[in-house]
């Protein structure tokens, strides 16, 4: 992994809200094309860290570089080099599939021709040809999530951040979603994903487990399972938390 290019480097990432320390000296590196999992209970500090890496929030201290840019001073450059999708990321339910694609394409600064091209490809790939002029509110959740993901990577970012992307989706759709993630990572895009489905942690190349604002483990799923003598990641998580 080390021969690959470094896309995220965090040294001593710390974020405080008053007395509350949401992120306490986090150190981690993420490499190009990697699927990096961020695990932890609600309130462990996952979302805070993601916000900092996306340039939405300034850290209290630490040296952090994302896609080669500094999170203190170059947040605008960071934003144009990343894609972001969260569980709450919602496409506009009162716009059609193709209107949503056009809108986000415009936001990411793509040209009109480029949007048109990509839209056609994307709709075909997702099998939404018949639904392209249907409202988002009428298409099933699984498809919405796949569409949201495709839109988040439409401008070919270096890194895509996925904040709990698969919450509440059926197991088949979840797997199709992960197929897409693999495909994107194959093409060289780094995928930074948070989840609380422990079995999904096993799809990641490396996982980072957080607890109360600190990193308590960071390794490949195989190594973690070996070190904690666990059958699966769920056991690893429970053993670490105790």
């Amino acid at each position, binding site marked *: 992994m080390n021969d690959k290019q470094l896309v995220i480097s965090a040294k001593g990432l710390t974020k405080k809200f008053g007395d509350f320390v949401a992120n306490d000296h986090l150190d981690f590196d993420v490499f190009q094309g990697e699927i990096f999992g961020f695990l932890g*209970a609600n309130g462990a500090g996952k979302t805070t860290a993601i916000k900092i890496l996306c340039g939405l929030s300034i850290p209290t201290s630490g040296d952090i570089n994302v896609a080669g840019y500094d999170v203190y001073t170059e947040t605008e450059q960071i934003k144009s080099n990343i894609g972001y999708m969260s569980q709450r990321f919602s496409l506009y339910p009162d716009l059609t599939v193709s209107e949503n694609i056009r809108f986000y394409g415009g936001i990411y600064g793509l040209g009109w021709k480029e949007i048109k091209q990509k839209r056609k490809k994307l709709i075909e790939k997702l099998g939404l040809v018949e639904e392209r002029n249907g409202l988002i509110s009428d298409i099933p959740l699984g498809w919405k999530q796949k569409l949201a993901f495709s839109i988040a990577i439409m401008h070919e970012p270096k890194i895509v951040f996925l904040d709990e992307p698969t919450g509440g989706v*059926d197991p*088949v759709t979840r797997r199709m979603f992960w*197929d897409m993630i693999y495909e994107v990572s194959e093409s060289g895009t780094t995928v930074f994903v948070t989840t609380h489905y*422990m079995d999904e942690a096993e799809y990641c190349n490396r996982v980072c487990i957080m607890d109360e604002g600190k990193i308590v483990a960071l390794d490949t799923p195989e190594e973690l399972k070996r070190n904690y003598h666990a059958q699966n990641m769920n056991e690893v998580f429970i053993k670490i938390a105790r």
Partner: protein
Amino acid sequence: MINIFQITKKYESTTALDSVSFQVDDGELFGVIGPDGAGKTTLFRIITSLLLPDSGKVMVNGLDVIKDYREIRKITGYMPGRFSLYQDLTVEENLQFYATVFGTSVKKNYDLIKDIYSHIEPFKNRLAGKLSGGMKQKLALSCALIHRPQLLILDEPTTGVDAVSRKEFWDMLKKIQREGITVLVSTPYMDEALLCERVVFMEKAKILAMDSPQGLIKAYSRDLVSVSADDMHRLVVDLRKYPDVNSALLFGHEVHYTSRSGRINKDELINYLQKERHNNIKFRKIKPGIEDRFLELIS
């Protein structure tokens, strides 16, 4: 305890429940397993008499949910999907409020909730809005139990809660069941199905199967193998191109593979993969899990 007979519920154009029937016995820990949008919440709202079905009949403890809803409401404890807590009241105030609303007192039924409430009692003066997900869940459960219901209905109680809290929560449900309370619980997590005595699989407004978790797994008929190789993504893609493929699905760092004929010829498959230049191929026959069964049912 609960007898559901062919209930159907439509919202404008979408069907939330399509002729759903099942029974829950007295004292059972019964699970409704299915993804979001399968119809679990609508089903629970009908059982708690919050919604009326378009057709069909639901009896709870011999009472009709439409006619006798007042009686049913007295014997049911209900915990909706979003923890129904008042964020601006303290832990203790929430518990006391629900106790008085149900015409009882915290003292009277304290022994029932003691195991659960003792975890959060040290924070009893903290506002409910300031609790962690796991603590909110415990408080909401205490509130739903405070009037010692005969039937406890929990709608996705473990969604968004960390793995440790989830495990503790299921231990609590077992204890509640031992108190003689019937527990009906819904969840999108397949692995939690194993913790129930009986489950129904729900998907797209329909019941796919109803049995004990072991019974469901036993019904799995095909050969199932786990395959892994260095390049997992390419492996999945290539397995799906294999002529006899029925399904090739990612399970962590393995692919669960089944064939259309039901039987799998190991040598032929490995040959094929080697021809596609896969390295480090691992192949083993495995026993199906509950998730394999669900995937088989919905595919």
